[in-house]
């Protein structure tokens, strides 16, 4: 009992401070311009009911963790993984098997699934890019979507001013340009402590969004329509959706290759040193500012390319692309997947994009016979509503990950083998 007391007190306290928001409802009185508050228990019950599947999953994870204390079922995963120490380009042998499989996608999936996977690819690219700064170098970036939107708008506005400006011209140009923007933005704040970068990028994304919303030639809130070009289509005999899927996949492979090579180079080692201890890194001769700038510019450049791809895929760009929620979502992907591990970040991207998307689809499954047979009735509605709760859950996941598993699902394996095991 005495052991449980702080927890009970904590739960009581939390119940008290969330009480009005959960169990009361504001009733504005528009005639007198006053307000009253009414008792609305269904309101709070609905909230907990919708979150029921989450509690179930959390309970399962907790049980698995308890069990792991005695049986160590994940020992094989966490054991000192020397077999994977920097093995050249064959290091990720499974990537060479995955590549042709992924490129077969157009033959395997329907058009809508393919569109979904193209988006996953774009988010993977974003997570990969953000992971360079956040995971490998240990600098927080909060306005990453700003660079994403920058790439997209560069593409869109380029098309407006130049008559022939297809995505495959825009993407290679967006890479250095995005990098340049990142460099200029990083220059004043990377000389300082890491925290400043977070707020400056956040401010940048906000300022960029406001600018494109207010200027006339950027189309305001509606955004800009992009003409998708069909140059390769007659040669390859594939439609627009398939084309954007294939090229997103190819660019993703290229980016993974580039990032992994850099990570295993002296540059990657320098990034890691900065993450572990900036002062110590500087004292052994790591050019800290240049390395941080390089990491950040590379992130920005990758985001800009992802922006071009997204614009080419959707056929339009809008200020919603650099909303704060977007940045947070990508950050949550990196943190959930694994800070400092490119594959982890990509896994996080796939999970955090696909799970809410499929949850949205669950609402359409309500009268599907197998679905109703497999899933108990009290979970069905909750699953359908859960997509609304995704940002709430992202927030909770970020806190819980930091408290209980700061390295993410797949942490940096190199960090584990080279630093923690010594």
């Amino acid at each position: 009992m005495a052991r449980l007391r702080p927890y009970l007190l904590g739960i009581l306290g939390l119940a008290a401070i969330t009480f009005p928001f959960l169990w009361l409802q504001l009733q504005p009185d528009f005639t007198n311009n006053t307000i009253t508050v009414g008792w609305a228990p269904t309101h709070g019950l609905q909230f907990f009911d919708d979150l029921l599947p989450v509690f179930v999953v959390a309970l399962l994870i907790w049980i698995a963790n308890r069990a792991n204390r005695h049986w160590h079922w994940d020992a094989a995963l966490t054991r000192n993984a020397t077999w994977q120490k920097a093995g050249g380009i064959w290091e990720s042998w499974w990537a060479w098997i995955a590549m042709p499989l992924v490129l077969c996608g157009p033959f395997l999936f329907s058009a809508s699934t393919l569109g979904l996977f193209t988006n996953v690819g774009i988010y993977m690219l974003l997570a990969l890019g953000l992971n360079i700064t956040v995971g490998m170098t240990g600098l927080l970036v909060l306005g990453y979507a700003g660079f994403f939107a920058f790439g997209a708008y560069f593409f869109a506005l380029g098309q407006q001013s130049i008559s022939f400006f297809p995505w495959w011209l825009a993407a290679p140009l967006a890479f250095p340009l995005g990098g340049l923007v990142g460099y200029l933005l990083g220059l004043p704040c990377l000389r300082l402590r890491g925290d400043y970068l977070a707020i400056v990028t956040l401010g940048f994304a906000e300022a960029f969004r406001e600018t494109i919303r207010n200027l006339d030639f950027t189309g305001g809130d509606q955004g800009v329509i992009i003409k998708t070009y069909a140059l390769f289509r007659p040669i390859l005999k594939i439609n627009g959706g398939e084309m954007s899927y294939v090229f997103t996949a190819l660019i993703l492979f290229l980016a993974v290759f580039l990032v992994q090579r850099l990570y295993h180079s002296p540059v990657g080692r320098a990034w890691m040193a900065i993450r572990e201890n900036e002062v110590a890194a500087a004292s052994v001769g790591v050019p800290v500012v240049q390395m941080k700038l390089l990491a950040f510019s590379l992130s920005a450049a990758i985001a800009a390319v992802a922006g071009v791809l997204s614009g080419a895929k959707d056929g339009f760009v809008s200020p919603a692309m650099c909303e704060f929620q977007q940045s947070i979502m990508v950050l949550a992907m990196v943190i959930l997947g694994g800070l400092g591990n490119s594959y982890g970040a990509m896994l996080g991207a796939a999970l955090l994009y696909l799970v809410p998307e499929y949850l949205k689809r669950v609402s359409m499954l309500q009268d599907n016979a197998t679905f109703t047979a497999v899933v108990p009735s009290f979970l069905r509605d909750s699953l359908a509503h859960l997509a609304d709760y995704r940002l709430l859950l992202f927030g909770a996941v970020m806190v819980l990950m930091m408290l209980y598993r700061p390295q993410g699902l797949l942490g940096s394996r190199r960090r584990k083998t080279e630093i923690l095991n010594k």
Partner: protein
Amino acid sequence: MFLQHFIHDGNDMSSGSTLTEIIIGGVSRGAMYALVALGYTMVYGVLGMINFAHGEIFMIGMFSCVFAIGLFSSMWGAHVALNLGLGMVVAMIFSAAYGYANERIAYRRLRKAHVLAPLTSAIGISTFLQYFIFLTVSRDSVNFPRYYSDWLTNNHVHFAGVDVTYLQLTILGLTLVIMTGLYYLINHTRLGIALRATAQDQLMASLVGIPVNKVIAFTFILGSALAAVAGVMFSMYNNVLVFDAGYRVGLKAFTAAILGGIGNVPGAVLGAMIIGLTEALTTLSFGSEWNDVTTFGVLMLVLLLRPRGLLGERVADKV
């Protein structure tokens, strides 16, 4: 063209506003930002971390005040001064409780972790609280009950040919009182000494018998209560409450804290005034929709020219 923006900005300025009135509007905005910026700067001063969830504490203050006003008016009718005053107290208590819970849950265990960890966890708390209010209270904006704010916003004081609303006077007066109190607290009380000692060196402070955990919790509680005051004032000033208001104001207040030199209390106030005035002048010359852009410009300029802020000192990083 200018008139349009003035109307959008609620009671920031009326149609016949002079430059002086616009500046007063900017200063009262700055005063509200200052109250929020103090929370950022105090936590940074003591813990060396950025409490990104502070904006959400401000937002919680806004909403709990309206809830309290609603509750009291259903309990004993609409007494303006009583309900508003009690609403403010309830808002401060709630914000303080959220600030404490935030520190207890998301930061305390991460105090010795890598810099990124508490920062990320703060972002998590911030997102969580925003969407908690979004899901449980309202997805759209809620209007502050005008019945309670009308007396403050519609009455003016004519002073040297300038119109100042009662609300602006209240904001300025309250901010002044709070600043004085805070100055006294930090420099002339035992608690203030404990606070400064903890900020300098937590280990040494604990060795001489200062309850470091309690002092840190107190910092969060104090900052959160100040944010609640700002929140209530802000919701009356703009007549609107939104779930992401805290994020927007928090960004401004944080910029203000950096501008003045983060960790520096008078600096935060100075920075907030500059941000408030920048906004007022931007509204005058370009329109309020450019506020974020100019604020960001000011931030970049300061980081380029005086990276430690206007009043900040250069401190070596600790290993």
